[in-house]
């Protein structure tokens, strides 16, 4: 168990595996699946920051993902901005719009926030779908360039793109890790626990919620921009609600409000759905029940369930001496009762 508990070792092994993956697996299809999973993970980290750590379920994130992707596409193809400048601008534009939406949306709470953002997400989808002249509408948007070279680094091959996406994933995980264990992260968690309590501690909840939302939108738009440059074809369906629920499934399966959750959930669900591909749309017949069972028995996902299991073991070890004593006393007293019964009999 000590090996499992060593978090640093785990992280190092996983990082090494991710780095070595293209060398170990030469099948280009798997490389493609892996790269796209990493992109989903970045988006799910964005969702996790706000839904998991701050306690507000945003259903507009697929919209922000698509907006980051389309912004990159439009800037590079239609405006002719150099790739990396367009990449930065796409993220900034989406984040800025996210801030404006957040200012309005964060006046609502709980279910109302979820419903409000669901509408925002759908509006983004409609705009992309209907604004033919800008986005290509249902025909889609083609011709997005691959990431431009940075000095001697070229990103034309799938392996190079894999490493580029991996680099961003590492960066996002690093930022999340530092954030969650900082005062800012604890402030978000405090807001998730109880906004009123946070207020009475002197925390400005509106300011902190907005900051968390904006950063969360930024991560998701980053994933969108990476998606656009990797797939190089965009259709309006990436803004659709089903993508949103894919993100949510990854997050819930992995563990909402945990650092490992987005990685675990995305890998597992992507892997499973690849294995079940032969079932086509009937896959959902298998996914549905699994997800339902998971939410009933592991409401905190796989990573969350593991953390709780460890905490319980730790607590049990701490209480063991007391429990043993209590058990011994119980045994003695029940033995006494047994004897009495025997006498009465």
């Amino acid at each position, binding site marked *: 168990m000590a090996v499992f508990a060593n978090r640093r070792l785990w992280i190092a092994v996983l990082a090494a595996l991710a780095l070595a993956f293209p060398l170990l697996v030469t099948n280009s299809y798997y490389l493609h699946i892996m790269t796209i999973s990493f992109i989903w993970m970045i988006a799910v980290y964005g969702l996790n920051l706000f839904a998991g750590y701050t306690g507000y379920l945003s259903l507009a994130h697929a919209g922000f993902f698509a907006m980051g992707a389309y912004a990159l596409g439009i800037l590079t193809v239609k405006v002719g901005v150099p790739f990396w400048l367009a990449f930065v601008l796409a993220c900034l534009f989406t984040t800025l719009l996210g801030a404006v939406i957040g200012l309005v949306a964060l006046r609502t709470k709980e279910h109302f926030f979820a419903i409000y953002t669901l509408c925002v997400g759908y509006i983004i989808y409609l705009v992309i779908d209907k604004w033919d002249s800008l986005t290509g509408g249902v025909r889609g948007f083609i011709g997005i360039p691959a990431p431009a070279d940075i000095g001697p680094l070229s990103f034309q091959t799938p392996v190079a793109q894999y490493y580029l996406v991996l680099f961003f994933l590492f960066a996002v995980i690093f930022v999340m890790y530092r954030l969650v264990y900082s*005062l800012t992260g*604890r*402030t978000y968690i405090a807001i998730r626990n*109880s906004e009123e*309590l946070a*207020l*009475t*501690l*002197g*925390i400005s909840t509106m300011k902190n919620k907005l900051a968390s939302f904006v950063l969360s939108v930024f991560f998701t738009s980053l994933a969108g921009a990476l998606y656009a440059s990797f797939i190089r074809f965009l259709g309006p369906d990436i803004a659709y609600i089903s993508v949103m629920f894919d993100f949510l499934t990854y997050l819930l399966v992995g563990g909402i409000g945990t650092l490992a959750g987005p990685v675990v959930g995305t890998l597992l669900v992507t892997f499973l759905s690849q294995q079940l591909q032969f079932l086509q749309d009937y896959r959902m017949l298998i996914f549905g029940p699994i997800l339902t069972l998971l939410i009933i028995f592991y409401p905190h996902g796989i990573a969350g369930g593991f953390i709780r299991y460890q905490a319980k073991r730790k607590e049990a070890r701490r209480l063991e001496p007391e429990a043993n004593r209590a058990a011994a006393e119980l045994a003695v007293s029940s033995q006494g009762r047994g004897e009495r019964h025997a006498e009465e009999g």
Partner: protein
Amino acid sequence: MLEVANVSVRYGSFTAIRDVTFSVKRGEIAVLLGANGAGKSTLFRTISGLHKPVRGEIRLDGERIDSLPPDRIVGRGVVQCAEGRKLFPRMSVYENLLMGAYVHRKDKEGIRRSIEHVYELFPILRDKQNAPAGSLSGGQQQMLAIGRALMSRPSVLLLDEPSIGLAPLIVEQMFATIKQINEGGTTILLAEQNAHAALSIAHRGYVFENGTIVASGTAEELLANDDVRKAYIGA
């Protein structure tokens, strides 16, 4: 220093607090006595800024604070320790205390001193500093809740029913500690049902019934008042 003048508070059409006026002088312990539902907690929430009064003024050292948002009121030094020991159960004792010092988050040295001060008041918290707050006993959780409120170095500490649900022996310790905190220079407004214990450490008291103040005076006067004795002390 803390003045509440003609304050009324409504929940929709229901008037929870009607035209309440009282004050707490610097360095005093004032106690609000009253049964459940008398409006004590509502009054505390209003002073903390979680509710806006429909009428009246709340002043701290002569300056109005009733229109400020809750986080700014904490910044002014008026801090509530909510009823029911609301903690962050999955954070450690130490992290809970750090959250209490949120308004001083840039002042690392000051936070270190405040934590040391809280550990001196409640030594058990030092022993348990790495334990999750949710694993503490009821009395320890109340200590942590008070300790966390102290971390913001309040000039006025609002304590809402600190004795609720605690064993009698712990209650006694709790009141002794509250007196100690007060002697350290913190003005305290205490809401209590345990009238006898509360009046024994308070300078001044107000009796709250149905959202309004029905009796007030020094602790001695209230202890001598027959109606108060009958209603709240049972002797």
